[in-house]
């Protein structure tokens, strides 16, 4: 396999950051050079454990996902019947909670847990990044921060799905779709927190906003809170759940949120650049890949693809 310029740069940065010695470098380069050029052939032929092979999320991120997951659904269950108080379907939900006054208390308590989860997340990613910078192993391409390459990947992925490209783009640990989703959720969270706090602390907001704006702000927030909630529910039910449950290759469920691991197949298909780093960081993964490709007779001779002149011409 001949790596693209970008993939080569990712590989070399990773080898440099992990202080890989010359012998190991040679081993990694040799492994890559004998892999088939077509990534689809690789990911269709590797053996994957459905609950995951490669480490992706640490325990903090998994706890934060679990907190967000539980608080989000509970907030929707308690919040929508409060807003649609008079609707026939809202009454049983409110009764289940012990009446609308109890629903309100539960809703606010769970909201505090959701805010805690967000702060916990900000702390984790900030401290994690600072630690990586100090250790000299920080690579911005490995983070959730949007880069110009994401726009290119978005375009290339559309071209692939339209049948105009043979392969999906080489994407990083977080692809364009995940970045859009992440920042949409972050924005939604902020809208919910600001609007929710304006109901709880109207005097505070009135004291910091210009007098002419305060009541308009309250009205705006009263509209935003339920509608952002509905939007978030739709995004979760139709976008997120499709991606993690129904999408081909993920059905019936992607286990990463529980095990913290991603399948080898998925990593090569959608996060190829991160897989290159996995090959650098984990000698066992190199052995696995080599064995799997060898047993299926899919390895190319060294130099076949690296040097086209020595080929069929």
């Amino acid at each position, binding site marked *: 396999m001949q790596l693209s310029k970008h993939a080569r740069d990712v590989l070399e940065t990773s080898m440099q950051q992990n202080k890989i010695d010359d012998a190991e470098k040679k081993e990694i380069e040799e492994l890559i050079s004998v892999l088939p050029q077509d990534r689809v052939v690789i990911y*269709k*032929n*590797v*053996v*994957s*454990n*459905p*609950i995951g092979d490669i480490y992706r999320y640490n325990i903090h991120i998994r706890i934060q996902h679990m907190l967000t997951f539980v608080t989000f659904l509970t907030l929707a269950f308690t919040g*929508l019947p409060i807003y*649609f108080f008079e*609707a026939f*379907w809202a009454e049983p939900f409110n009764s289940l909670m012990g009446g609308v006054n109890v629903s309100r208390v539960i809703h606010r308590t769970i909201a505090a847990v959701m805010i805690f989860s967000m702060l916990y997340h900000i702390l984790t990613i900030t401290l994690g990044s600072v630690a990586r910078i100090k250790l000299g192993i920080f690579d911005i391409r490995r983070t959730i921060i949007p880069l110009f390459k994401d726009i290119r990947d978005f375009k290339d992925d559309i071209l692939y799905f339209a049948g105009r490209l043979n392969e999906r783009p080489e994407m990083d640990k977080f692809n364009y779709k995940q970045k859009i989703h992440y920042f949409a959720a972050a924005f939604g969270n902020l809208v919910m927190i600001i609007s929710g706090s304006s109901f709880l602390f109207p005097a505070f907001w009135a004291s910091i906003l210009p007098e002419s704006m305060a009541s308009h702000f309250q009205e705006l927030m009263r509209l935003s809170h339920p509608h952002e909630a*509905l939007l978030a*529910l*739709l995004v979760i*039910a*139709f976008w997120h*759940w499709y991606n993690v*449950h129904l999408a081909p290759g993920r*059905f*019936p*469920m992607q*286990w990463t949120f529980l095990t913290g691991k991603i*399948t080898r*197949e998925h990593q090569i298909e959608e996060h190829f650049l991160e897989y290159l780093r996995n090959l650098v960081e984990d000698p066992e993964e190199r052995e696995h890949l080599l064995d799997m490709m060898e047993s299926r007779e899919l390895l190319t001779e060294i130099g076949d693809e690296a040097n086209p002149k020595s080929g069929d011409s």
Partner: protein
Amino acid sequence: MMKPMTKWQKVIAYSSLAIVLVWTVLGFLAIYVILTEK
């Protein structure tokens, strides 16, 4: 090539799938009710 799931893995994966599908159907119903209620 994915290894087959064990019995328990199947139970967890398919039951969570069932939950989200039921939730999605309820979501459709809720949106329909919200949008058509007078």
